[in-house]
């Protein structure tokens, strides 16, 4: 059983105790503990269950690569699944529960899967559950879904109560990793004056060196680390950050960092996580190396862990995973674990070394301390049900005949080390196989390249394959030297690190080498996903030869550790199965993030009300205070209607329309786009932009126009007012303002750059209010205008400026409702005051604010098109009866050539008409007019569709506009429009509608032209 040792633990504060709970059981820890070390200190070795077979699992690693010890953390609103116990710093009151089991961690019914393991090899689900067909969806899949998954989801009734934020930063150099390589690189760069961000994913500086007994410049590594950090902390241009992980590298030197600010200290008033977005000149990945497991039968049992992790638990946290630990290795480094265990007073019955000989200094030291070193040996199997009780030893080069049983309660394994090359690889850096170390390391000739085609990620230290402390230091100095040279600087003296020399490792991919199929089915490669050596071999046998195929077929490396422990071992087993060299089989692509990061951090502050910027008109506040029912329109929010207490939206819209048609209504039209187009060539430019002629417009007058894309389709419409000889004010749709302004600039800058035209988008400089209805003029007269607003003085389609009620104003006599209408623009800052002045002046006339829906109904009653309703990106002006707005005189305008193509001039294009149901009802939105028969694909033929449909309170019936085949030539014809409802016989219900003129109201325009 694992225990807390009475001494040791460089990271824990033994003088204090904190309480936490696991599966409801109260436990004690010391500050500095991780959840993994604290659980082991409390004798809790089993921490989770595997994915497929639900096998009991203990912690196998001590860092980010941990695949087994994933827990649910917190409760209620702060519950979070899949937290790695190895990265979770214990705090007082921490609550954790284990995952993926029922009813309990120790007794999981899902463990029955393991009994049938032989029936569940890799990819078994592709070969079965095929018949009967409905069973996949209704029986098999629900069962698989329930037994898969890991942690429990947060409670959907709650939103995340925590805060997240994002930081933006620029740096000459980002150094990922605060071990001795990273610190040395930071010292050199910092002393040379570079702007540096040094980030370390864990809560401590120094990495492995202080644990492994390294000496630097004659002092213990820990002291050197402290001194280095102290010096760096004094440098204003160096930013030191613990708990900040370089999560991903993007092109052109972009680094995504993930900082955990609040996880270890909840309740403080800080954001929980912070996402860093750093533009870096160069990136040094001093990300170290990860130890690999060995593949022997039973290597997944609780109590079997990485040798380095075992050492970490003893040295860092004073925790002994077992009292008697067998070491199994293919390299010298694992002997450090043996020595550390012995130094801590723990028993090491033997060291099983797969190499035929082992004589390195560490080996000799182990032998000298009386440890039993067995070379050329391996583990044949691990005994024990929910833990380790013994191992059986065998010859490594045999088939696994048991030579000896060794009683033990823990196994420390080491299969060698792999550099962490993720950051190098994210942007396409290539790798090369290092046969001596049996790992992939960066291929310096093929780095990821930046905007100048230069390598911008440099691996340093162990991440570059320099695993031993002395090499690490030299390598780090050389790596940072390359960055300094680019800045015309050179590095300082290199500290000398000293660690015991190591004899070469020897790759061991399967233990023992000649293991039979039964043993290979018990050798785990991917602990979380339950992928074994036999599974990879099966994939190879079945032709899934590419590493990508094998990975996907077996799910190797697809677990939450993303193959950190399993990739190389799996690849090697695959290569052996294919009888290929490992480098020829290749490696899979590393994708960000290095370890999973919270979605909350990715989203940052932008959530809820500030999820997207909200654009407000100057009158927005009034709408809000007066009960507007909102409709989102782009980033704006416009009042849909202003319902009175107890009034339905429908009734409110009808009331607003009738009040406007019979009296006067008020619309906030400020969102309409307003673009100034000015210059000697402004008229010529607008003639290209609009389908009709704008250059002939007289100052003081307005003209409606249509804009098309170069591909011929209608993209916007609106009224142009000529301000003076060289200036036009272009009105666009609400959604069109920014788009059309960009469209103008595109053509001006990139095609007609010699034309003298300036444009300015002044949409937000003006509040615009439409005063609409027979009594509109009376309201303005009441308010008082210092310019002529009479029918003669300011006729329809003219504009004038002056003061109205003391407000500086421009009044446009334009109408989108068919009523007498003044659209009045005042400076934005006076918008609300003007709106309120109009309301006061209008009281006696029953002035009524109206919203977008009333606007829509009134324009439809008049047969005016709406961009986005009558148009959908496939409609040209010719379809809409707008030929009058297409100049025949102009040789060219944007879209003209496109509209000459055969499909655009096809007489069978559907054309705009009005539609009236025979029974007066409202046609459904988007309904189609059916035609006889079906097309070649068996789809019912159609001959038209509804584009806009409303109840018209003015006419007391449903009205609609639509596009119909030969529509304008078929006035009076009755068509069948479909519905999504069925009649009693199960047939689609149809509604009959007659083709009529789209102008339903005041066709002569007598109401607007007064």
């Amino acid at each position, binding site marked *: 059983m694992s225990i807390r040792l009475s001494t040791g633990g460089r990271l824990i504060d033994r003088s204090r105790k904190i309480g936490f709970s696991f599966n409801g059981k109260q436990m004690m820890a010391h500050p500095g503990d991780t959840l993994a070390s604290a659980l082991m200190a409390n004798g809790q070795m089993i921490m989770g269950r595997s994915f497929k077979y639900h096998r009991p699992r203990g912690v196998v690693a001590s860092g980010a690569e941990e695949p087994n010890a994933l827990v649910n953390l917190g409760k209620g609103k*702060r519950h979070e*699944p899949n937290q790695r116990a190895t990265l979770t710093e214990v705090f007082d009151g921490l609550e954790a529960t284990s995952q993926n089991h029922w009813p309990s961690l120790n007794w999981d019914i899902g463990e029955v899967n393991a009994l049938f393991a*032989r029936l569940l*090899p890799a990819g078994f689900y592709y*070969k*079965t559950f*095929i018949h009967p*067909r409905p069973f*996949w969806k209704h029986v098999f899949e629900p069962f698989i*879904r*329930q037994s898969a*998954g*890991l942690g429990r989801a*947060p409670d*959907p009734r*709650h*939103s*995340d109560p*925590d805060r997240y934020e994002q930081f933006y930063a620029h740096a000459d150099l980002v150094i990922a990793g605060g071990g001795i390589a990273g610190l040395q690189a930071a010292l050199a760069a910092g002393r040379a004056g570079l702007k540096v961000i040094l980030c370390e994913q864990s809560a401590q500086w120094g990495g492995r060196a202080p644990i492994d007994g390294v000496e630097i410049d004659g002092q213990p590594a820990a002291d050197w680390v402290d001194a280095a950090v102290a010096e760096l902390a004094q440098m204003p241009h160096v930013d030191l950050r613990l708990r900040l992980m370089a999560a*991903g590298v*993007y*092109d052109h030197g972009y680094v995504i960092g993930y900082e955990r600010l609040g996880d270890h200290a909840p309740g403080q008033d800080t954001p929980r996580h912070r996402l860093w977005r750093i533009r870096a000149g160069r990136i040094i990945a001093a990300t170290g190396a990860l130890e690999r497991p060995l593949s022997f039968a039973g290597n997944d049992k609780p109590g079997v862990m990485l040798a380095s992790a075992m050492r970490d638990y003893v040295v860092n946290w004073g925790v002994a995973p077992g009292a008697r630990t067998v070491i199994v290795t293919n390299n010298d480094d694992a002997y450090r674990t043996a020595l550390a265990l012995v130094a801590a007073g723990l028993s090491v019955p033997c060291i099983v070394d797969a190499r035929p000989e082992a004589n390195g200094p560490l080996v000799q030291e182990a032998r000298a301390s009386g440890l039993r070193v067995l070379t050329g040996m391996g583990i044949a199997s691990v005994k024990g049900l929910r833990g380790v009780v013994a191992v059986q030893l065998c010859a490594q080069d045999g088939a696994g005949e048991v030579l000896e049983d060794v009683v033990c309660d823990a196994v420390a394994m080491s299969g060698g080390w792999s550099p962490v090359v993720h950051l190098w690889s994210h942007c396409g850096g290539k790798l090369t196989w290092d046969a001596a170390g049996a790992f992939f390391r960066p291929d310096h000739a093929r780095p990821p390249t930046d905007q100048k085609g230069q390598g911008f990620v440099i691996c340093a230290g162990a991440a570059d394959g320099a695993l031993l402390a002395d090499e690490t230091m030299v390598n780090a100095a050389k790596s940072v030297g390359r960055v300094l040279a680019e800045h015309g600087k050179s590095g300082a003296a290199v500290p000398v690190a000293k660690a015991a020399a190591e004899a070469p490792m020897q790759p061991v991919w399967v233990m023992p080498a000649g293991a039979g199929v039964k043993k290979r089915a018990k050798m785990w490669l991917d602990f979380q996903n339950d992928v074994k050596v036999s599974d990879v071999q099966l994939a190879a046998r079945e*032709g*899934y030869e*590419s590493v*990508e195929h094998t990975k*996907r077929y077996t799910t190797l490396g697809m677990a939450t550790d993303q193959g950190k422990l399993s990739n190389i071992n799996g690849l090697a087993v695959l290569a052996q199965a294919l009888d290929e060299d490992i480098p020829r089989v290749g490696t899979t*692509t590393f*994708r960000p993030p290095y370890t*999973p990061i*919270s*979605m909350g951090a*990715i*989203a940052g502050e932008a*959530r809820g009300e500030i*999820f997207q910027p909200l654009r407000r008109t100057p009158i927005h506040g009034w709408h809000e205070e007066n009960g507007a029912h909102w*409709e*989102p329109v782009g980033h704006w929010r416009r009042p*849909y209607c202003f319902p009175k207490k107890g009034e339905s939206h429908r009734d409110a819209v009808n009331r607003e329309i009738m009040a406007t048609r019979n009296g006067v209504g008020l619309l906030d039209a400020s969102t309409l786009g307003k673009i100034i187009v000015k210059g000697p060539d402004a008229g010529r430019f607008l003639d290209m932009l609009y389908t009709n002629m704008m250059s002939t417009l007289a100052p003081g007058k307005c003209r409606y126009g249509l804009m098309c894309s170069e591909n*011929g389709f209608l993209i916007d419409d609106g009224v142009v007012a000529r301000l003076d000889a060289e200036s036009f004010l272009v009105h666009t749709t609400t959604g069109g303002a920014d788009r059309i302004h960009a469209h103008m600039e595109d053509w001006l800058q990139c095609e007609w750059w010699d034309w003298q035209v300036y444009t300015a988008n002044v949409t937000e400089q003006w509040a615009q209010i439409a005063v609409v209805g027979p009594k509109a003029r009376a309201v303005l007269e009441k308010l008082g205008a210092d310019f002529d607003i009479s029918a003669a003085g300011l006729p329809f389609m003219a504009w004038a400026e002056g003061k109205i009620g003391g407000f500086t104003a421009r009044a446009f006599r334009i109408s989108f409702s068919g009523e007498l209408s003044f659209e009045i623009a005042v400076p934005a800052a006076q918008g609300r005051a003007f709106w309120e002045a109009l309301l006061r002046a209008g009281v006696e006339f029953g002035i009524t604010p109206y919203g977008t829906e009333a606007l829509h109904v009134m324009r439809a009653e008049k047969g005016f098109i709406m961009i986005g*309703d009558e148009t*959908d*990106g*496939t409609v040209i002006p010719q379809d809409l009866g707008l030929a009058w707005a297409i100049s025949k005189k102009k040789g060219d305008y944007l879209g003209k050539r*496109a509209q000459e*193509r055969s*499909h*655009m001039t096809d007489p069978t294009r559907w054309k705009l008409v009005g539609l009236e149901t025979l029974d007066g009802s409202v046609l*459904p939105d*988007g309904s*189609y007019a059916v035609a006889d028969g079906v*097309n*070649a694909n*068996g*789809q*019912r033929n*159609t001959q038209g*569709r509804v584009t806009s449909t409303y109840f018209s309170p003015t006419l007391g019936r449903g009205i609609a506009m639509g596009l119909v085949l030969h529509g304008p030539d078929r006035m009076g014809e009755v068509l069948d429009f*479909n519905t*999504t409802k069925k009649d009693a016989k199960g047939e689609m219900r149809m509604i009959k509608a007659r083709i009529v003129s789209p102008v339903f109201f005041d066709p002569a325009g007598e109401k607007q032209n007064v």
Partner: protein
Amino acid sequence: MRRYSAFAIAREAMRHHLGWERAWKSPTPKAQYDVIIVGAGGHGLATAYYLGKNHGIRNVAVIEKGWLGGGNTGRNTTIIRSNYLQDPSAAIYEKARSLYETLSQDLNYNVMFSPRGVMMLAQTEHEIRGYQRTAHANALQGVATEFISPRRVKELCPIINIDGPRYPVLGALWQPRGGTARHDAVAWGYARACSDMGMDIIQQTEVTGVKREGGRVVGVETTKGYIGCSKLGIVVAGHSGVMAERAGFRLPIESVALQALVSEPIKPIMDVVVMANTVHGYMSQSDKGEMVIGGGADNYNNYTQRGSFQHVEETVRALIETFPIISRLKMLRWWGGIVDMTGDRSPIISKTPVDGVFVNCGWGTGGFKAIPGSGWAMAELMAKGHSPLADAFSLGRFREGRFIDESVAAGVAH
């Protein structure tokens, strides 16, 4: 071919699974084929499969630069739906969807088609009208969809926040027989079936040139030498432009990177596929428990399979807005694929200026769902010279201005 079944697994289990044969052979190329398909992704393999199954053309090679199914087939978010607006789109996607219904049985390979339902949220008045239009169109196209209320949305997917402060859910277009499938299995299942028909799937071989005589294709140059053919189908999403140039013509296509993401696996919380176009995001939960999320496409030409971070950010933001609980989940991995974007964002299944050369490309961000229908139509086009499913998707439409524009119905990558 030995059939897959539970009994076969039990039988093999007795022998420790040492008796399984290869899912597909690894042949050396012949000198001449009736048809060569370039590209062993889903679309290419499906084309080969239906050439054999529907038209009896079995002297076929499928040539693949990398590994079969290694392109976009294995990089997408596996959504299957056919609730398209325009008739030609609805026809081919519904054909595909209906073939997916029985594909596992057809191929004797479980592709795990899961018709769990796809909903597209309406969050503006404009979107309501758009989806109601689609529902009316679908009713006439034989595609079963309906427009549903916010309450029904919440019943079908309880983790949706329908009362978000910015874009409350106003309804949704619901296709109950839409869903997902296991993407790799689709490629592998077709490959195994093609191989079983005697077709050659030649991996790790790049087609470097197209040999023409008198304006007609006669064969291809490859990194394994020259191979003759009577007809050539180019089905290489992401690299269509490059292959077209080798065949001597240009396409109305640009290649951009599209990204997708998955979270860490959690226990089931979501049984349907949800797409939210106003806020730009979509999500489903895989059988493994991962939340599978689609991101946006870059708008610059790119062949690197790496996208830009802001799309990840925007997508996650949108989805936290729609599904607030995912804020406390962790993002496990994100990746990119190269997609072909055509001038009207609809695919091309067409003859080309070169006799005997056919292209199938331009599926943009939504090709996975079309694989069976696309292969069916392409096979028919190659065998018979025309196909009702493919005719509207010809290259000629760009000259005539006869576009198939779906943007009115769905403004988001999928």
